[in-house]
């Protein structure tokens, strides 16, 4: 009897544990939603697309530099307009003095690829929502896909300009089964992918999201055109570049903000002005990282004396006659503080808790000067000059900076254009790329522009070695960060840094 009872208990216990065990062991996380449960409604696509934008502001895990900081460092550190402050780090100093090694943390591309992966995730999974949500239209889906593909193209464009040859990853990484050890793709092939993504975006994206702030904070048709113009210029496709610029100019939706007393406030301090095409929207919830870079007493960067002395110059006879983009635009002249992102009411600064100046990606002045650059190359010098003077006039550029080139003098026009871009986009992360783009044209025909800039940027004992380094085209691109090479044997280091 007892044995029988025991037997029954044992058997039933085995059955119960056997069947309920699996259920008991299945646990779901509570702090998020799993992929299997996501991608059901169009609102979820919307929030995933918004997530891509949010990731442009900063790394969600907080372990990497915010993307705009990389954009700033890559675009400005090697230029002649910036120098280290008291808090400058060794890695930043090494990039400024052309002493980059594969261990330099500024050579990390992880922040860019992280957002690319978010974009890829939307591209891969959003279409399946069509099966689950009847209220989602194909047009609406395509518009979202266009947004993230444009963003992906723009980010790859940064990589191509900074590293030249990079791995091209167009599939999302969702599971460890998706892990790959890719080799590099040549910069030209990546540019073709960028063109394809932008072309898709061009035909599917919306013109407006219905509110002026969202039109500036998210990618619209005009942003795509601006991106196309930029990429075409890089690829030396001038007709296409000019056409893309024309689309924006002819839309009549943008204009230059008047260069009066309210100019800085409207354009930079408040943001989302009529001049803006696409700017990353920091706010009180998510501050930018520029305050510690420029404004504390352990500031990492300050402007060089060259900025006021040569780029903007000073009218010694009339202190009311100044280029508005210099004093109170780009710099605080008393201490060379980089003003654009931390300035408030000249000469007093923002406080740190309201340090949420937006990061400019494109604004109308850029379109005008890109158009001018394309026209110069198309031998339409006088039209190009008209655009340059349009920008100069708004800013009250001083006569001393007017190089007055002849419309037929291609080199003179290029020099003038680059100088004007330096003035207009000072510290907006564009200087190095502008110089590199114009120097590399026709097999480094104008390498002198870059060499002259380096001679001004790197002073002291490192000057000669920096100039020599930049004569090697490979040295104009950053090395691959060493941990990437360690974890992917298929990646080959940029030959200059081997």
């Amino acid at each position, binding site marked *: 009897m007892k044995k029988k009872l025991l037997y029954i208990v044992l058997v039933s*216990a085995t059955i119960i*544990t056997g069947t309920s*065990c*699996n259920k008991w*062991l299945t*646990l*779901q*996380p*509570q*702090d*998020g*939603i*799993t*992929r299997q449960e996501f991608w059901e409604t169009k609102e*979820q696509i919307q*929030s*995933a697309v*918004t*997530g*891509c*934008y*949010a*990731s442009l*502001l*900063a790394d*969600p895990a907080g372990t990497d530099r915010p993307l705009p900081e990389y954009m700033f460092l890559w675009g400005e550190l090697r230029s002649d307009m910036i120098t280290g402050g008291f808090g400058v780090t060794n890695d930043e100093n090494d990039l400024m003095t052309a*002493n980059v*090694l*594969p*261990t330099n943390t500024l050579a*990390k591309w*992880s922040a860019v690829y*992280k957002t*690319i*992966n*978010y974009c*890829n995730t939307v591209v891969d999974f959003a279409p399946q929502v069509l099966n689950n949500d009847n209220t989602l239209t194909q047009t609406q889906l395509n518009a979202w896909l266009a947004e993230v593909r444009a963003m992906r193209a723009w980010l790859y464009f940064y990589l191509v300009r900074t590293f030249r040859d990079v*791995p091209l*990853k167009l599939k*999302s*990484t*969702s*599971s*460890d089964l*998706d*892990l790959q*050890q*890719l080799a590099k793709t040549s910069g030209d092939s990546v540019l073709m992918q960028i063109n394809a993504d932008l072309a898709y975006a061009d035909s599917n994206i919306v013109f407006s999201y219905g509110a002026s702030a969202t039109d500036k904070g*998210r990618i619209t048709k005009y942003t795509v055109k601006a991106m196309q113009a930029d990429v075409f210029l890089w690829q030396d496709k001038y007709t296409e570049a000019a056409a893309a610029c024309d689309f924006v100019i002819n839309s009549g939706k943008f204009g230059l903000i008047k260069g009066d007393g309210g100019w800085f406030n409207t354009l930079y301090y408040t943001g989302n002005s009529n001049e803006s095409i696409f700017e990353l*929207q920091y*706010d009180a*919830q*998510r*501050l930018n990282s520029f305050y510690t870079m420029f404004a504390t007493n*352990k500031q990492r960067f300050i402007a060089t004396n060259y900025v006021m002395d040569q780029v903007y110059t000073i009218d010694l006879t009339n202190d009311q006659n100044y280029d508005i983009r210099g004093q109170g635009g780009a710099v605080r002249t008393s201490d060379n503080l980089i003003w654009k992102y931390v300035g408030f009411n000249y000469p007093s600064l923002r406080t740190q*808790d309201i340090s949420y100046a937006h990061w400019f990606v494109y604004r109308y002045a850029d379109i005008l000067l890109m158009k001018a650059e394309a026209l110069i190359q198309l031998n339409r010098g006088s039209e190009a000059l008209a655009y340059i003077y349009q920008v100069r006039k708004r800013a009250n550029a001083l006569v001393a900076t007017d190089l007055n080139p002849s419309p037929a003098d291609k080199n003179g026009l290029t020099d003038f254009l680059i100088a004007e871009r330096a003035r207009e986009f000072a510290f907006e992360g564009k200087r190095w790329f502008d110089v590199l783009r114009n120097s590399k044209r026709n097999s480094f025909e104008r390498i002198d522009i870059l060499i002259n800039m380096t001679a001004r940027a790197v002073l002291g004992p490192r000057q000669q070695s920096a100039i020599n380094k930049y004569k090697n085209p490979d040295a104009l691109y950053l090395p691959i960060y*060493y*941990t990437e090479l*360690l*974890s992917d044997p298929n990646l080959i280091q940029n030959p200059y840094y081997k």
Partner: protein
Amino acid sequence: MKKIFVKLIWLLALLISFNTVVSAQDAAPAVIIRGKVTDKKDKSPIVHVSVAETDKDGRIIKGTTTDIDGNFAIKISDPKNKIVFSYIGYKTIEEDIKGRTTINIILEQGSKDIDEVIVVAGKKTDNGNLSVNDKDLTIASSKIAAKDLEEMASASIDQALQGRMAGVDITASSGDPGAGMSIRIRGTSSINAATNPLIVVDGMPYETSIPSDFNFGTADDQGYAQLLNIAPSDIKEIVVLKDAAATAMWGSRAANGVLLITTKRGIVGKPVLTYTFQGILQKQPSSIPLLNGNQYSNLIPEEYMNATGTPLNTLNVKEFAYDPSDPYNYYNYSQNTDWLGAITQLGFAQNHNVSLTGGGQKARYFSSLGYYTNSGTTIGTSLMRVNARINLDYIVSERIRFATDIAYTFSDNPKSYYPGSAAQEIRNVALNKMPNMSIYEYNEQGIMTPNYFSPAANIQGQYPATYNPVAMANTAKNRVISNRVTPHFNLQYEIIPHILTARTDIQFDINSTKSNSFLPQIATGRPVTETSVNRAYNGDVDAFNVVTKTNLIFNPRLPEKHTLTSVLSIQTSDVKTVSNQVLTSNTASSLLQDPTAPSRTQNTDLNVAAGYAQTRSVGALINAQYAYLQRYIINVGLRGDGNSRFGPSTRYGLFPSVSTRWRISDEKFMKDFKFINDLSFRASYGQSGNTPRNDYSFYNNYSNFGWSYQGQAGVYPSSIELSNLRWEVIHGTNLGLNFIAFKNKINIDFNVYRNRTKNLLFYGLQIPTFTGYSSVDMNVGTLDNQGWELNIISTPVKTKNWVVDFNFNIAQNQNIIREISPYYPKQNVTALTANGQYQAFLQINNPFGAIYGYRYKGVYADKNSTIAKDEKGAPIIGPNGQAVYMRFNYPTTNYLFQPGDAMYEDINHDGNIDYKDVVYLGNSNPKFTGGFGPTITFKKNLKISAFFNYRIGSQIINGTKMTTTNMYGFNNQSTAVLRRWRNPGDVTDIPRAMYNTGYNWLGSDRYVEDNSFLRFRTITIRYTFDNKLIKKLKLKSFSTYFTAENLATFTKYTGQDPEVAPRGVTGPFTIVTDVSTTPPVLQFTLGITTSF
């Protein structure tokens, strides 16, 4: 509280009355038995003898006690039952009734019951499921009895175990009160740092991990030590299970070894009250000698000048202006402050513990109450702990018994504020702090004020990199308060007496930890708009664990010569942790120290977060041990595990084990060797599986951003789906030898082992970041963890008055990678181009731990000495006949060495120091580690025991030497830099000072040192008072002792403490670096143990 009490009492009363009603109803026709109980010796009647009617299972049916004349009368329910007479101090007598109505009994004095319990308990080793005689063990284990631990001035048992057992390494994460410990059994079987063994208390697993996403008020999780807080005096013994066959029984979390802790239980006898006291004095030894203010103020401007070529502008940098016309800066920056001394104090600790134990035939109890308080050696750190435990056994009958154990611990642990990284900890900051700065602020008139001098920033930097450590120690708050209750219930039922037993255990574990910290403005000096000002943190993590275990133990009666013990066990565990934390800043005043005060929350630095995690596991185990003639013993087991951390496809694992023992000494051919008591060979093989550390990792989880974009919430995939993750399986083999001879005077235990870890789990494996992620957890390959260990326990002298014991243990352990995933990097850095780096390579089939770097040859005395030389020592001449000077890393870095720079050996004589000049410098894998010590007992009264531990044959990086002589920043340096190169022609071994530039401290043999050492770990002198004296004092026992710890270290190592990370090498690229700035704390303990 009172209400609850009242309710409980009512409930209890109800239950009792209910019980009596039930038993009254059951009452059968009454037979009354009368009798008298007398003492055998003096024939006097004994009062209060318990007289009980018991049934055939020994269950008490009814009971009474004798009156003042020793008479009793009891109404029995069944004349077939027995009557049992028991009284403390007398032997228990059982009588069959056999129809009698008068039973007179004579009781004999004697306390045999008590002895029996002790003897049995001492001889057996319990693997947690099966209790096996020590001499029949087929597994590798070591055991330490509480007696050996008593003298240690330890607040926790892990501290006490340090260095006591072969192959068991325990290290403290810091010397502060309440600091955590890392325990390693036989090295580590994983290449991840955190692999603590499973801790099993009284047969039930004891949770020691905390959720990884909880940060304890920005303190590191290593510092969390509320985990193993069982009072050392409550412990009866500790057994460490080392080989895989033994740990296989415990399943997944046992892969890194098992620490079995058995607490004391009640024993039959009169109540015994024991009181132990420990008083402890701790002294922080002096640190390395540092520069004083004047020497420092000489160094920094020179360092700046050397690097930039321009003098430090003291118009802007007032810190070095020394301008008496500016009294504010002059006085605040012209001091000679000993920052470390200013935050150091003598540490005192006292430990009181009262325990009460006793019991009768049916019920036994052990209860204890402990109070421990310790003020740390750093100002502002302390620990207060109260723990209580009650272990109750109730024996209903010979077949049914209950046990209820309840343990409660409260601890309050104020710590130093933790700014966010180890380098920013208070002692590190104090060490680096500029010594010319004042602790208290001088005002504009040069008069000292009572305010701390906390400038917002100065040349050295700002918070969190540097701050005023004295202000921080005294004003900032960081407190961890924890409450933990562990009720454990056990029911044992003998289904077939002595043959089949069922045992069910259920344990609840409620662990609540609250962490509270506050950073006032004065500690950092930062402007009030910043979020570091008046930053308040409150965090709470609560863990609720339910662990069950049901064992069916089967010991069939077999013919003589055969024995079999077997167990079927089903175990479940459900661990739930809930946490929430709030970090706010800018409260209105430094007196408002809690986030409940109105404060700022909206900033990415600040956060409000909550976490929830749950893990469940089930395990089933069958294990049997069979012995033939006690000579041939075999143990086989099979365990199945299921764990919620895996996806459905990989959720379950099966892990077999087998172990054997052959006792040669019992064989006939060994009969002539009479002096051998035991000679046995053991062999074992076992598998155990390890689960990943994180929950839910097999999901691709989508999370919200901490911020919105233009008012819209964004979602991103926050974790990668790990569908490839499998059980990490450890295949352990162990060969052992036991040799006991000369009447147990010598006892040798030798083991050779290899733990092969397959599907090695690696956390945070770096993957190419173009995937969108920077790291994943992955099964990466196969790792061998192999070595041997020898343990000798001997008693060379044993006379009437003198007993000398001598224990010795020695072990060696190596880690070798056998197979590795292509994602795993092959080296730690691609080239040695930055200061302070060393290179390490992954070499398959080679033990790891090798260090590579440059060879340091001193300092270039002048310009001529920087000329490059060829093999023959002749200067290298350039194509135009010009001198070629030494360069660093041409062409990428292309730095020309200058006079005063560090000189590295140009191995290939090409005039260029680069990767081709990197050579092998040493190995951080120790050849041997171990400990030894004698114990001398004189006349059973005086006992002196000493313990030494040692390590031989390893090299480590002297990281402290590197950071205190590099002269690279504004941190204070050691006095060694006083002999630095200053002028051409100086011949010295310390290069010139260079602010933030140069290559003077590249990874070279300059910092690689042999750290073999012998440490005089403890000495204890114990005196136990004579019985006569004790009786006069009406005590049961009384002893007192004095212990000194960390008295001396014998080593050639020039750093502060050679015993850094004795666990050695944890990964192929681990380069063991000593960053300790002070030697281990000197500690003196006075202890008293007495019982009544």
